[in-house]
């Protein structure tokens, strides 16, 4: 991404397009809201100077803000040439931001309710230049275009980024890998010309039942509670002065404690469930994932604010199958993509790399197989990491529990309640179960040209990373891992989380895995094979 100045200085040729005129309704409102503190300051200042003859300061401020936002609209133009997307802004200081069209990695179309009311949509063009801070951000935003125009622009840009001539150029440039990562040329599913989109997934309204099993409701409830409390605090309202709260407190004082606890639990539970369902519906309603014939995945979703995202398949290096414990309990999972060039910061709230919201596990697995064009990495049974890894899981869970038990013992000895001891002792079986599940979840495989690694219990995750996407190995051994003969092998990659670890596997297995995943890389650094060494304890699955 480059910032050039006054390249197209004086002449306004007809290719330069304006943002939608309807933004004249959105921009001033938004700017006024943004400048409220300053405007309030102006009004107060105007009133207090002299006898209030400066009353016009406030209205003047409003007029200036509106005029500025109109000016901003009037001076903003964009155009799309065969090589570049250009955005020109500024009245006094002209700035032209240009993004090479073949560097466009993502085109997201977002429409907030206000935008939708006016038939508008915002277009975010991402170039994925994470390190390119010199260009001032990565990509450009057109806020906003008429919805139809936005959709057309998105199709145009994505089509251009994938057109054969550009692909060739990209293939030979140093930062672009050539072929599809999973080696498979789309065969067999050759689409009709008039309907090039193949639908891979669509939201089933029944999936909303999984919403309460995500943490989103709990987080939302906490956020709302915190916000409400803060608001009351700022307005100097003591909660117990508010009528309903007062009534509630009176009610508590007259009722048995266990009944109060029960009621509060039920109320909280209902609130959390309602919030999580609301959140699920708001962000995922109308979710649809399609594969475009020219090699990209398109995702549309959202009830009020709609989003349309695309992931180019040649930037896809794999998928992550997310099974947090609660979702796992109801046989559900989430799916996200491992892609290069998408900022990973948005992933916590299901950002650009989301491929499937919480849905039945079978659906998630089938979708993963379709996206990878190979069911093997999803279905493959994983190689376990052996007894040393199991001991390590157990030890790492029991150590904190041991500390807890000792602390409880000390508390009882110095006069604490016996219940403390009981509570501490009861954590032991929970810890053992957790360790057993953590070990059961731990495993790896090489399948379909991809490294498959799975770990975790409370947040179990299976990562499938194409071997072509691996750009190096970190083999780490802590002091205790060395004593146990274990190592953690981390595949580094330019995509997704940047690192995908295979945790606590026996050292020879780690080396062998690294060697098989990227043949040739480790070859120079292997110990010469000693004839009698192998065959003792290397239960390595055939890839």
């Amino acid at each position, binding site marked *: 991404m480059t910032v050039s100045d006054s390249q197209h200085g004086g002449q306004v040729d007809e290719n330069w397009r304006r943002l939608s005129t309807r933004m004249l309704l959105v921009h001033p409102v938004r700017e006024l809201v943004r400048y409220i503190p300053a405007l309030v300051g102006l009004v107060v200042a105007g009133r207090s100077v002299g006898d209030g003859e400066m009353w016009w300061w406030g209205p003047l401020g409003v007029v200036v803000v509106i005029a500025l936002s109109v000016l901003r609209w009037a001076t903003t133009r964009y155009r799309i040439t065969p090589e570049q997307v250009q955005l020109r802004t500024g009245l006094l200081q002209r700035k032209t931001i240009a993004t090479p069209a073949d560097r466009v990695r993502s085109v997201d179309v977002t429409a907030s309710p206000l935008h939708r009311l006016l038939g508008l949509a915002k277009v975010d063009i991402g170039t994925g230049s994470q390190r390119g801070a010199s260009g001032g951000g990565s990509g450009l935003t057109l806020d906003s275009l008429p919805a139809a125009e936005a959709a057309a622009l998105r199709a145009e840009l994505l089509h251009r980024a994938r057109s054969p001539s550009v692909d060739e150029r990209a293939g030979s440039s140093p930062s672009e890998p050539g072929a599809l990562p999973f080696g498979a040329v789309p065969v067999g599913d050759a689409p009709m010309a008039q309907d090039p989109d193949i639908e891979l997934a669509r939201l089933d309204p029944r999936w909303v039942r999984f919403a309460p099993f995500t943490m989103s409701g709990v987080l939302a409830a906490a956020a709302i509670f915190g916000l409400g409390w803060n608001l009351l605090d700022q307005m100097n309202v003591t909660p117990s002065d508010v009528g309903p709260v007062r009534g509630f407190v009176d009610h508590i004082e007259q009722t048995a404690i266990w009944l109060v606890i029960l009621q509060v639990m039920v109320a909280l539970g209902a609130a959390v469930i309602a919030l999580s369902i609301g959140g699920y519906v708001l962000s995922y309603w109308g979710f649809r994932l399609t594969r475009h014939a020219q090699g990209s995945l398109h995702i549309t979703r959202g009830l009020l604010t709609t989003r349309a995202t695309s992931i180019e398949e040649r930037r896809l290096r794999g998928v992550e199958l997310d099974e947090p414990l609660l979702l796992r309990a109801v046989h559900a999972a989430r799916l996200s993509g491992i892609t290069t060039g998408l900022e990973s910061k948005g992933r916590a709230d299901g950002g650009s790399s989301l491929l499937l919201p919480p849905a039945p596990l079978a659906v998630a697995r089938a979708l993963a197989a379709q996206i990878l064009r190979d069911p093997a990495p999803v279905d493959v049974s994983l190689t376990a990491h052996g007894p040393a890894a199991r001991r390590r899981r157990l030890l790492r869970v029991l150590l904190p529990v041991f500390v807890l038990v000792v602390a409880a013992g000390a508390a009882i000895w110095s006069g604490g309640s016996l219940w403390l001891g009981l509570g501490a002792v009861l954590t032991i079986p929970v810890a053992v179960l957790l360790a057993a599940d953590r070990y059961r979840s731990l495993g790896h495989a090489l399948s379909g040209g991809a490294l498959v690694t799975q770990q975790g219990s409370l947040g179990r995750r299976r990562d499938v990373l194409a071997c072509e996407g691996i750009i190096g190995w*970190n083999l*780490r051994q802590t002091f205790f891992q060395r004593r146990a003969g274990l190592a953690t092998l981390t595949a580094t990659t330019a995509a997704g989380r940047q690192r995908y670890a295979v945790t606590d596997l026996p050292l020879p297995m780690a080396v062998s895995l690294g060697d098989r995943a990227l043949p040739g890389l*480790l070859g120079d650094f292997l110990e010469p094979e000693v004839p009698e060494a192998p065959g003792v304890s290397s239960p390595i699955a055939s890839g």
Partner: protein
Amino acid sequence: MQLREPANHVSSRAIVFWTVRALPGWLIALGAQLLWLMASRDSEGLRVAALAVTVLFASAHLVVMPRWRYRVHRWEVTDTAVFTQSGWLSQERRIAPISRVQTVDTDRGPLEQLFRLANVTVTTASAAGPLRIHGLDRATADGLVAKLTEVTSRSDGDAT
């Protein structure tokens, strides 16, 4: 299957460098304890014992850590890969193919300049994978950078 160690040691001056670098932290801890010892007179035995323990740990750390590190810290560059090994209690080996190398940097802190040492950092397209070789002799570092630049320019291929 086992990995062998990378072929080259770092400079032996790194041993002194690591010792000197670890010294200030221990000196501060010892100074604080001495002040504490002088501050008042009660339970003196306990404080002297604590001081003795600190001295013991400090000397063990200052003697063992640099030598252990020196045995672990190794590196090797072939025509196809960069291979480094570092750490002491926790050890890490990193391998990256030459075809994926994006930048090669050297840097020298003030203390390192005093010992005529340099660090070489080899980065790839992954944010997780910089390979750092600490405590190289300055001439070796310059030679290594020259070699890496030469080898990477020879290799064609992509870097992601």
